[in-house]
């Protein structure tokens, strides 16, 4: 079964829920998509290198087998999940701490 594919999309859904429940409204924030345009290039270089060497190797039965350069497409969804959770939490805590310790 394509478990990595399922988990990647599942975690992206969880990341979107973070954004929704923490009320960080990232998905409708233009700056968030500018950020992703920049990150896409950086991820392409770093993940490209990791998968090209390869430093990381993938179990053929667990992902779709579609690669962009040497990067499984699931990796982009995975990266989206990780960093969207990070930024949603960062914005949430920024708001929280700024209210608590205004300066």
């Amino acid at each position: 079964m394509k478990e990595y594919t399922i988990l990647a999309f599942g975690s992206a859904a969880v990341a979107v829920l973070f954004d929704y429940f923490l009320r960080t409204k990232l998905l409708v924030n233009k700056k968030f998509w500018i950020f992703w345009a920049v990150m896409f290039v950086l991820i392409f270089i770093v993940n490209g290198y990791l998968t090209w060497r390869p430093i990381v190797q993938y179990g053929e039965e667990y992902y779709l087998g579609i690669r962009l350069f040497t990067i499984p497409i699931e990796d982009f969804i995975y990266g989206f999940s990780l960093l969207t959770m990070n930024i949603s939490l960062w914005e949430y805590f920024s708001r929280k701490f700024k209210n608590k310790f205004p300066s």
Partner: protein
Amino acid sequence: MQTEYFIVLAVCAAAPLVLSFSKKMDFYKYPSRLIYTILIPFVIFTVWDYFVTARGHWSFNPSYTVGFKILGLPIEEILFFIIIPFCGLFTWESVKYFTRGKDTE
């Protein structure tokens, strides 16, 4: 070279680490903000990684990792979940800095 995964992480972290001390952003103003933000996804992704690495979703080339493992994961992979979020947060703050005063919608 067994240090290669380490070097990749070091290259990623170098510029963000130095520039994050810039007075133009308040990156370290609330240390707990940085800790919580990195810690929560760190736990989720490390647990995920632990199970799927054991299952064979992916593996790490022993030629490019130093060989020190925690819970079956190379130390580099554990550090990945700290360093990459750090780089992402720095990039996010940079995007906000360079687009300051502009509309978000």
